[in-house]
């Protein structure tokens, strides 16, 4: 029982991170119908950006309060990663509108390879450990066998930040004109353009939002694991994509739900079956969902038009 509760907490934390990345996949897929393969690497890049700024803030500027440092890092990482998201869209995807269907996917694979190797060349191939930022834990209850169920502050921060950002983001998409334009483009790009929506700008914005949320995930990942390396983007990226597909690609609540489910499955699989095969489990879910339930839990079934 204690182990179960502990794994539930761990799984939800991991799931929040996956959910944040998955939103980027689901939004981009919703609006231009492409799998943004490079999104996982944008996430990895943002973890590096936050690592560097965390070091600048703590060692050079001497900010001793972790909370303040974390907040500043979060904002800076969001801004800079958004810039990356925008630039990637501008350079690698925008010229390909109206090209054949697989062109953006191949281009995205190119961007993915570029980003991970760019970081490797710029920052070195070794794992980068950070000094532990937040270490305190809250002991929720003590188990009979002496096993304590603990909720660490890290996990609280991760879940809280995720919840707050999702709320803000939800408001942005549902209530603002910006979000309306975004949803309009998702439904019918040509019609939206005819009605005076700047489609290119809206698509750019989608990438910017996706990258910003990925950067939050990157900072949280760094906070949680305390170590990052240049090839950390691929596997979390695929898992987040699995989450997006599981929740129903194109659906925002679906992405978060899918992220939580994937996080829970992964932690429970590691706890009760075998940790070696946890990635196999994630990949298998991806394949099974795509084959048997391609519209996901909350997605709309796709109608093929001739």
């Amino acid at each position: 029982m204690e182990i179960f509760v502990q794994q539930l907490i761990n799984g939800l934390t991991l799931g929040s991170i996956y959910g944040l990345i998955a939103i980027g996949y689901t939004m981009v897929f919703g609006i231009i119908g492409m799998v943004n393969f490079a999104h996982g690497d944008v996430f990895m890049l943002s973890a590096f950006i936050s690592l560097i700024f965390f070091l600048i803030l703590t060692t050079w500027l001497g900010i001793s309060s972790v909370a303040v440092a974390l907040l500043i890092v979060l904002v800076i990482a969001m801004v800079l990663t958004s810039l990356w998201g925008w630039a990637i869209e501008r350079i690698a995807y925008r010229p390909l509108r109206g090209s054949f269907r697989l062109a953006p996917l191949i281009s995205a694979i190119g961007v993915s390879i570029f980003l991970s190797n760019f970081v490797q060349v710029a920052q070195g191939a070794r794992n980068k450990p950070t000094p532990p930022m937040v270490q305190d834990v809250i002991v929720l209850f003590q188990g009979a066998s002496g096993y304590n169920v603990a909720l660490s502050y890290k996990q609280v921060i991760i879940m809280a930040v995720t919840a707050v950002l999702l709320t803000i983001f939800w408001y942005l998409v549902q209530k603002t004109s910006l979000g309306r334009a975004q949803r309009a483009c998702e439904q019918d790009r040509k019609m939206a353009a005819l009605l005076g929506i700047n489609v290119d700008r809206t698509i750019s914005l989608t990438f910017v939002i996706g990258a910003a949320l990925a950067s939050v995930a990157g900072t949280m990942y760094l906070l949680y694991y305390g170590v990052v390396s240049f090839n950390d983007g691929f596997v979390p990226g695929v898992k987040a994509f699995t989450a997006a597909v599981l929740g129903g690609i194109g659906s925002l609540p679906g992405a978060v739900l899918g992220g939580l489910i994937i996080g829970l499955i992964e932690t429970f699989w590691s706890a009760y079956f075998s940790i070696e095969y946890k990635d196999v489990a994630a990949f298998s879910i991806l394949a099974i969902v795509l084959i048997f339930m391609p519209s996901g839990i909350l997605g709309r079934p796709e109608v093929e038009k001739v």
Partner: protein
Amino acid sequence: MTAPSITTTAQTQTVSRSFDLAAAFKDAAKTALIMLGLSIPILAYKTDQSGADLFLTPRWGLVAIVCAIVFGLRLLIHAFTASRSYARATPSPRQATELVDASPSAFQKASRFGIPFFLGVALAFPFLVYLIQGGLTESRYWVDLGILILTYVMLGWGLNIVVGLAGLLDLGYVAFYAVGAYTYALLSTTFGLSFWICLPLAGILAAFWGMILGFPVLRLRGDYLAIVTLAFGEIIRLVLINWVDLTNGGAGISSIPRATFFGIPFTAGEDGFAATFGLEFNGMHRMIFFYYLILALALLTNFVTMRLRKLPVGRAWEALREDEIACRSLGINTTNTKLTAFSIGAMFGGFAGSFFAVRQGFVSPESFNFLESAIILAIVVLGGMGSQIGVAIAAIVLVGGPEILRNLTFLQAIFGSGFDPNEYRLLLFGVGMVAMMVWRPRGLISEREPSVILKERKAISGSLVKEGHG
């Protein structure tokens, strides 16, 4: 959605001979500023580790250089587009009014002589190298490189069946390569089977795996298919790592028996290859044998593909690539058609894998990661999907190119002695893939050779075909 046609741009644009220099400068400055923003943390500070602590090393000089380069490039692009739009606005008297050009293109003319030339060079390569380098041992590096390139040519041709002909984006092709390699490695080390028995077995097993993996997957559309094949590729690799009892895990299988010349081993002994043929023993004999083996395998792949294209199944593949719905309406069994493409492609991957195992004498799961799939895909994409000669050229460029990069020692004089061009290989790879999609999405050779001809041979321009809708 669609790019505006050329005529409208020519009409609306007022083109002057001198382009707006100030605006170009302003835009280039803006681009450089964005580059600065992009490079602020990741280039400007390098994280180095000493003990348990990380510390930062600033590198603002590098950032300045990169921004200057971006500025210059942007300016060049402006100048280039300005001159091009000027050329477009003033139509040449010979400008074609017809969209379809039916006369044989420059590529077709060149390919009539180019292909036999390429074949001749490939056949004579070890001898040429022997003559140039002046000795068998000296030519080892070049023959090795030739084998490597030909392996990728073969993999590219195998994947070309799936991606180029049938239009199914397969991101897990390396799984079948792995199946082939492990088939040979396991059968030869466990049961002592020879290479010549394992080679067809590897092909059959890989084709079988292609069918098993393909069957549930092939109902999916383009990018979903790509992602699922990627997942399968990774699953196979992870199983190879974790199933230690069978595959020896991440340590891999070593001391795989070497191939023999149809039963005659390449050893220095009495019954060895050299003694049998009255030659002086040299380790290079085996390498040259490997070279011709992979050349034969690659040519076999090419021959089978070219023949299959002319059969009903091959024509169905290409029809499927162009329009799946039309295919289904015409009564083509799309599942079977896709499955044959998938398993035949997989079979050639299996052949190549078994060759890989016998050449290396060692296999480990690390050789079969996603990057390998991406490289093979890049070869096919770069070559122009569906074009056989294009794939061969792309393999030479992508696999041979980095080797040239490695030998450019003068670069070290510019960038300092710590500069290792090989580090940038994959970086350039990624950039190359993006650039290719942006500038030439149809690949190096975008012309299509029609597989069936009525009366006369006409070139099909790449812009008239669309692929990847499957």
